[in-house]
């Protein structure tokens, strides 16, 4: 599994996303630049310039027309993917830590930081795709359709469940909440991870009925979107920054590593900067992929399940296309199931 090394950023990566077709990969880092890459060969397609601060988050609309980014310059920007122009800027009082399109692309949520007397919020924005010929993309509503305020513990990450029925948010205190995206009402809040161990990532399964959380408490958990029941737990030996569910094969990929501030006090062999593969159903660790020389900050899997990419504190993005053995590997029990 030879990786393609993408070195287009000068600072540590914050998030990477494949588009729905899997041919493009978008990466954002603390260096204010948004990059678009061909996932097949790692060629850089272009950059989206305009942010004034570290870019924390990126998401692609399901139809690969619009790109949303959230940044430490307190804005969410909407870009025309094809032309690279910025079609809309929303201003927020604080930095934006996570953006996510709803499954059908009609809405965008933005998680804002708690700072300077402002509470953390989740804002929901309506997205207009114009006339379908890439015209009128700049006609977006100025005000969010909804604002959810997190009174207790600020939200760090959030995403949409199936049918955009719920907004699922992970919190700083290690809990996960379920909100109604229409009323903004909190439907449930479950202390999933250890108390005060921040949830660093939430990623959904392809059908969005369940999702995976990655937490500082060194574990990742698979939860049902409907009732927030913990379905599976994947324990590891290092704080986790990102976790992703692989389509096609029943795996999950976890990434993390010794917190960046602690790394200097330990040797490189100790950093645990590996992507870890677990079997999604059996919760066993199957393998590790090394390569980064800093903690893994973000992981995303190709929607077809043929590749995954990881972005690290070291400033590199590594795209790995899976080998045949990856697809062949199967537990005896699974094989039996297949034969039936």
């Amino acid at each position: 599994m030879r990786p393609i090394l993408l070195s287009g950023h000068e600072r540590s990566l914050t998030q990477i996303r494949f588009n729905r077709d899997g041919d493009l990969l978008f990466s954002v880092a603390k260096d204010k630049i948004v990059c678009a890459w061909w996932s097949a060969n790692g060629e850089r397609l272009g950059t989206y310039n305009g942010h004034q601060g570290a870019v924390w988050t990126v998401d692609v609309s399901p139809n690969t027309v619009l790109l949303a980014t959230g940044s430490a310059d307190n804005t969410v920007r909407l870009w025309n993917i094809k032309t690279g122009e910025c079609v809309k800027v929303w201003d927020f009082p604080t930095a934006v830590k996570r953006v996510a399109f709803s499954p059908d692309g009609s809405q965008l949520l933005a998680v804002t930081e708690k700072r300077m007397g402002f509470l953390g919020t989740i804002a929901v924005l309506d997205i207009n795709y114009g006339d379908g010929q890439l015209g009128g993309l700049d006609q977006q509503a100025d005000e969010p359709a909804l604002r959810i305020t997190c009174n207790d513990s600020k939200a760090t990450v959030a995403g949409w469940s199936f049918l955009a029925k719920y907004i699922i948010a992970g919190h700083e205190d290690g809990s996960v909440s379920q909100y109604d995206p229409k009323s903004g009402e909190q439907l449930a809040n479950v202390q999933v991870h250890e108390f005060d161990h921040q949830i660093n990532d939430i990623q959904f399964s392809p059908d969005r009925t369940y999702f995976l959380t990655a937490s500082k408490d060194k574990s990742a958990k698979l939860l049902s979107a409907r009732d927030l029941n913990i379905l599976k737990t994947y324990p590891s030996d290092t704080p986790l920054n990102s976790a992703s569910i692989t389509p096609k094969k029943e795996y999950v990929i976890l990434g993390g590593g010794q917190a960046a501030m602690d790394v200097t006090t330990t040797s490189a062999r100790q950093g645990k900067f590996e992507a870890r593969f677990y079997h999604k159903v059996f919760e066993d660790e199957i393998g590790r992929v090394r390569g980064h020389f800093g903690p893994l900050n973000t992981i995303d899997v190709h929607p077809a399940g043929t590749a995954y990419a990881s972005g690290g504190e070291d400033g590199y993005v590594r795209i790995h296309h899976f080998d045949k053995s990856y697809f062949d590997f199967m537990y005896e029990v699974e094989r039996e199931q297949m034969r039936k």
Partner: protein
Amino acid sequence: MAPSFEQLSEQDLHEEEEEEIDFSDLKAQFEVKADEGLDTFVVIDGLPVVPEDSRQKLIKFLLRKLSAVGHTSEDAVFMPLNDKGMSEGFAFVEYETPEQAVAAVKQLHGVPLDKKHTLAVNKLMDIERYGREGRVDEEYQAPTVEQFKEKEHLRSWMGDANARDQFALYRNDKVGVFWNNKSNPPENVVDRAHWTQLFVQWSPKGTFLASVHPQGVQLWGGSSFSKQKQFPHPFVQLIEFSPLEGYLTTWSARPIQVEEGQPVLTFEEDGKNIIVWDIESGKPLRSFVSHDLAAGPAAEGDVAPKKKVQWPAFKWSADEKYVARMLQGQSISIYELPKMNLLGRTSVKIEGVNDFEWSPATVSREGVKQYEQLLCFWTPEIGSNPARVAMMSVPSKEIVRTRNLFNVSDVKLHWQSQGAYVCVKVDRHSKSKKSMATNLEIFRVREKGVPVEVVDSLKDTVINFAWEPNGHRFVLITTGETPTGAAVPPKTAVSFFAPEKKGGAGGNFKLVRTIEKKTSNGIYWSPKGRFVIVATVHSQSNFDLDFWDMDFEGEKVEAEKDLAANLQLMKTVEHYGVTDVEWDPTGRYVVTSASVWTHSMENGWNLHTFSGNTLSENPTEKFKQFIWRPRPPTFLSKEEQKQVRKNLREYSKEFDEEDKFAVDIANTAVVEKRKRVLSEWVAWLRREKEIQAEEKDAFGLPEDADSPKQARDAPIGGEEQGETVVEEMVEEIIEETEEVIG
């Protein structure tokens, strides 16, 4: 159930509560008033009744006895007279301190004054307390004898069907006891939070697990690890069991302060640091003030002598009948158990004595019939007298062998585990005191006259030495000159020694092999001998563990033909940050661990077989301590053991089958579990899908409600589904020529 010490008994609980509220001001104000100063008074009864004029005579006579236990004077004795001018047969005596008063009660009560009169001494306060009417029940009430309760079998763990071993694991705030299950996860027996405050320790035969608390030491045992014994030594820091588990020594840097009402400790223990306890009764036998150990002999005095704790302060003889303590440079005091009286009423004066060691086993020297225990000690050069190593026989206190040594800078005494040899490691300096060398002088204790063999001198300093348990071989590690303050760990050399083959163990000790350019510093013999691990521990950069076999069953190197050893390196294992190596008591497994007490990187423990195959790795956060539960000595006679060894093949066949069976069962269990988990998962997915479909219907949403909006409204790019144009550019180098122009 948090089995912390404070919940151990009512009384302890009470203390704890009181500590929380500071009512010392109230105490000062109210409490003492009534009895102030009265605790220095004693009342003496049983005196002869005398007329006034002979009163002074009696007092003087009495004073002789009274002064034996403390300071008092004629004025402080008050003997009241009645109307008839006769004394009443009692007197009040005031001592200087309450301690003296207590001592008087203890020592003078019941002492005969003459043929007719016997003293009855009580504290005045006690008489106040109990002497008044109604304070004590008139009728005798028999003390209630507590119902006999069957105690747990203290050696129940020995009855394990698979002869597994137990270990105690201390990590974070929790201490647990587990069964070793080879490569499978260990099976938990008990796991308790805050079980100990400092550390845990097994007794030498594994009967008790000791936990150490600020209030004292608590012993646990039996199958459920229930409370067994309690030794309330406040702020205890170090503990040591006697070899047969009969006694316990505890030490604290803080002198004990005995408070009134303490049921176990008496004024006897006040101000002491060390207590020797009888484990059976839970009572202190005797207590001592600890001697401070000055570092290094005074002659070397370039380093300021530091105060060091001499530990173990008391060293036990193998049969537990004697315990000895050294006053550095002066004497060795030998105490006889179980009374803890000084053997022969005096300490053995040995000028300059620097260190001593008991023989770890009861030895019988050739030609010596009476029962004896041996101890070895050494004294440095004093004036023109040479340094001396000597062996003393106890109880006769006879010196049975001495050896004079010159140019000695330090000596270490190493007994072989059966007491067959003592290796005296002598660090010698040249006349100029510049270069150092080490000599090994081996006393053959069992042979007639205790001959001494000198193993050829080693040029380098020996930093570690270890005898093979129950064997005749040893391993040592030497190091060359190390530049002080160098960041690089010093290079060391590991040398293996074995006796020549000459019928039994009679041959001289010869070097088998030296392995140069190592960094090793630790030697860990298997408790059964033969296998030894030479490791680099407590190092920042090296973590190698070499597993050696001393009786390799393969081809032997020609040069080592006539030595009773066949050395073979079986395996080298690395364990990052290793700090400790612990063999299980059977010598089958060995655990290497990295404790948070030394550093905080990658703490945890790894389990290996004796040959270095790693069975499991257990990274554990805040891992502190791993200790195997020792086993008591076997009941099998030597012949029976031989028999077992002879038939090992047959037994092992049985065990192999058992193992295979266990693996099969485990595998089936795993497969079954996976099947179950998988089918549950599939069922969950199906159910979820159904619910989702229902919801879509309910909302009146189309099947593809989740698909991209734009794709539905006006798909862009690659409009024709299923037909995609892939443009591929292929560059090929057809020819390459190189021309030189000009």
